[in-house]
């Protein structure tokens, strides 16, 4: 029995589903597969005449060759450039002229492209995505659009990471955390490796990974399975599988941390120190039972204002401005379980560290109450009901899970399963992750010398 919770990239979406009022049968997602191997999922939502059309590819930054970090993401940008039948920069023009919004995103595990349009435009969107799945043209002019897009990605990296001392520190920590694993390098890639990527790298990547049998179509919105089947067979059906898509991903279990480490980053932009600790967590794909119990346990421990750590460190001891715990459980492979906090002025990171860990030890010794575990379970399950309000997040939710290899049935089972986690299971999962025998990485974000 598998259980699941999902996210796209680093954004945690909580999961779908059920309370006393289950979704009406008419809105139950369904799935079928085209003859060329392309999987299709339909998520009905008839509130407005709008659809979200997504194509997910089973390829991400984890699949990059050594020295080619950032190619999955840069290539995603290049997919908007030009095809055999669509002129340079015309792809976006056609979609927007059709009243559509569009974008794409890349994670370690998958790459997804989407358009949101009036339902009358769905066929046209399929035509466009099918075209760039097989007919992309990559301009190899050394001063041409591939090169300027590379510069854009370098600016994107500066904007997302290098302007932000907290993001820089996290990059260092994750690099250490996933040392030797395909997640080691951040999705956008290392600056010098991105700067060296060539049009040929893009073309090689395209040929290897972009084909119908390596793709999943998700359509959410005001459509029926039959509507989608007819259109998908017309537009995607004729595409020939290349047979080249990788048969195996580079996914592998994440090794336990070899040693405990402290990583610090000082920056003149930092005006408020931040303390974090990263332990090896788990993932819903690798260990669904533990992941489910860990989600519940971390909710009790550090999930919000009512959590144990917040009440102790912020409210009672007044040592912290905030304190929280969370785990990256929705990647394919194991991610970190993190405790982080911001001290009040006058409290050092070392003092906060000691107080937090002493409190965790106390909580783990005393156990969780039934009431707080029930509250945590219900909160996780209810998030799923609220998620139904967003067509995009439903499409993301299904797409990301399917790209990791879960089935519709497994996705649907989550809310019922989260309600069955016992206080003992939640406690055991937290103990297993934060146990005294485990190595961890501590990170200190600090002001520049002399700025304190």
């Amino acid at each position, binding site marked *: 029995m598998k259980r699941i919770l999902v996210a796209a990239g680093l954004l945690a979406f909580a999961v779908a589903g059920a*309370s*006393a*009022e289950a979704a*009406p049968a008419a*809105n139950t997602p369904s799935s079928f597969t085209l003859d060329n191997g392309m999987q299709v999922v339909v998520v009905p*939502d*008839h*509130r*407005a005449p*709008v659809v979200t059309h997504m194509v997910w590819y089973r390829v991400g930054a984890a699949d990059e060759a050594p020295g080619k970090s950032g190619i999955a993401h840069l290539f995603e940008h290049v997919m*908007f450039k030009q095809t055999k039948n669509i002129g340079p*920069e015309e792809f*976006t*023009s056609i979609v*927007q*002229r*059709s*009243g*559509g*919004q569009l974008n794409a995103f890349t994670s370690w595990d998958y790459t997804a492209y989407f358009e*949101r*349009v*009036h339902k009358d*435009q769905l066929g046209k969107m399929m035509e466009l995505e099918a075209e760039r799945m097989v007919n992309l043209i990559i301009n190899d002019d050394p001063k041409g*659009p591939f090169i*300027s*897009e590379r510069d*854009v*990605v*370098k*600016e*994107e990296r*500066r*904007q997302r990471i*290098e*302007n932000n001392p907290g993001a820089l520190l996290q990059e260092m920590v994750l690099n250490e955390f996933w040392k030797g694993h395909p997640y080691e390098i951040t999705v956008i890639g290392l600056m010098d490796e991105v700067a060296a990527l060539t049009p040929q790298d893009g073309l090689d990547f395209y040929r290897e990974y972009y084909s119908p049998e390596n793709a999943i179509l998700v359509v959410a*919105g005001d459509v029926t399975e039959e509507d989608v089947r007819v259109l998908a067979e017309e537009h995607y059906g004729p595409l020939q599988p290349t047979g080249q898509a990788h048969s195996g991903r580079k996914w592998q279990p994440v090794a336990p941390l070899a040693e405990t480490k402290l990583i610090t980053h000082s*920056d003149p*932009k930092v*005006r*408020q120190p931040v303390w974090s600790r990263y332990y090896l967590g788990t993932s819903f794909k690798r260990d669904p039972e533990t992941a489910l119990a860990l989600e519940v346990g971390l909710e009790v421990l550090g999930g*919000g*204002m*009512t959590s144990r750590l917040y*009440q102790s460190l*912020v*409210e009672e001891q007044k040592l912290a*401005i905030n304190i929280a715990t969370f785990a990256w459980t929705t990647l394919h492979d194991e991610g970190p379980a993190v405790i982080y906090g*911001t001290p009040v*002025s006058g409290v050092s990171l070392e003092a906060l560290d000691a107080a937090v860990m002493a409190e965790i030890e106390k909580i783990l010794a005393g156990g969780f109450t039934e009431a707080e575990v029930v*509250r945590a379970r*219900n*909160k996780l399950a*209810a998030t799923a*009901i*609220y998620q*139904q*309000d*967003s*067509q995009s997040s439903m499409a993301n939710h299904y797409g990301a899970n399917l790209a990791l290899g879960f089935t519709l049935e497994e996705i649907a089972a989550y809310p019922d399963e989260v309600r069955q986690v016992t206080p003992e299971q939640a406690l055991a999962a937290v103990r297993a992750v934060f146990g005294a025998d485990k190595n961890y990485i501590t990170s200190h974000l600090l002001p520049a010398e002399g700025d304190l």
Partner: protein
Amino acid sequence: MLKLRLFSGAAAALLIAACAGTPAPQASLDAAQATPALAVDFYDGDFVDIQQFTTPGGVSVWLVTEPSIPIVSVQMAWRGGSVADPDGLEGLGQAVVYGMNEGAGDLDSLAFQTAMEDLNMSFGCSNGTEWTSCSATMLSENAASSMALVASALTAPRYDEGPFQRFLREQEVSLKTRETSAGYLAWRAQSQALYPDHPFAREVTPESLAALTPELARSHMRALMRKDGLLVTAVGNISPEDLAPLIDNAVAALPETSDLPPVTPVALPQTAAADPVIVPLPQPQSLVRFIGPAMDRANPDYFPAYVLNYTFGGGGFESRLMKTLRVEKGLTYGVSSSIDPNPSFTVWSGGGQTKNESAGDFITGIREEMQKFIEGGVTEAELSDAKAYLIGSYPLGFDSNAKIASNIMSVRQDDLGVDYFDRRNALIEAVTLEDVNRAAATYLAPGRYSFFVVGEPKGLTAE
């Protein structure tokens, strides 16, 4: 199309506000005395059907009933935001809204937060520059109990010393971290350069925080949140007759009216300084922001300018700013522009981030694009593409309860009328090439725009 429908009113029992840390009591909706029928104006729109009614307690409500998901959201808004903080008490409005889910009636902070979790609901308030708003989202099966908790917050917020001191500790951190926030520094530079004496330029300071007290928050809460002018919208799985008594109970204890100072509009200079203002910040990129005077919705140039903005910087990859500065030159990950027609502060503004070495090229590029609009205008094809997107994509703003709730509240706040959504596309369609090019000539003159740069830009002459 307006239709008048009469719903027989279900009556409300007086809801019990306090929940004492346990799951709130399910308030009874049918333990009723007779109440008058609720008169509901049913507006049957192309994008959304809106039910307008005035509750027996006198509150004007717009409701969109959406039965397909078992959730309900309720929004309330009052004119009067941080601009209404008394001089020397900057941050008071923030203290008011911070305390709104930090304990009420018999429930202290932890008990109130726990009650919300038990109901799987959320409730919170915010203090914008000119508006104060509260928002509650709940499961429809818990609507009565959830709104009873909202009622207790609006009736008897505690403003206990503990959460109040926590608010101050959090604010102290904000005062420190804002000093290295590029966006905040750009805003401050803009305020100080363009409208230094206007209330919109005021900032929270250590001194103003030190002057705040729970008692001041308690009384300012009743100045911001009153029955007079209260706007309520709701979306979800609930009927007018079930909602009306919940709203009435929630706002029953608010004062009828209050005295808040009127806001004088900001008058931006029609001619800007030639050189950018530079704010040093040690980081690899420079944030560039430009801002100039625009127009409000009553101005006949508004819709032409709105359509023009798509081609200028509002249309993503279809905008000339993106085509030139990102796609052609690779100078930025993103550059954009927008118009704010808020009568108190009508501005056309935009910007983006670029490496420090190219900050000068980036600013030059923006000014050159503005100049091209003055000289050559937009093409028929660009105008037609802009209209096609702006009209064709409009339904995308109505595909979730959350978006509908936000849209109908905006229409109420801007007083655009219940039929606005259905009129809006025709207003865009009617814009001509002459209109757009007239707006370009008037509003996009580069000399109207002040530039602000935060970072370590190379080779720029500063103001």
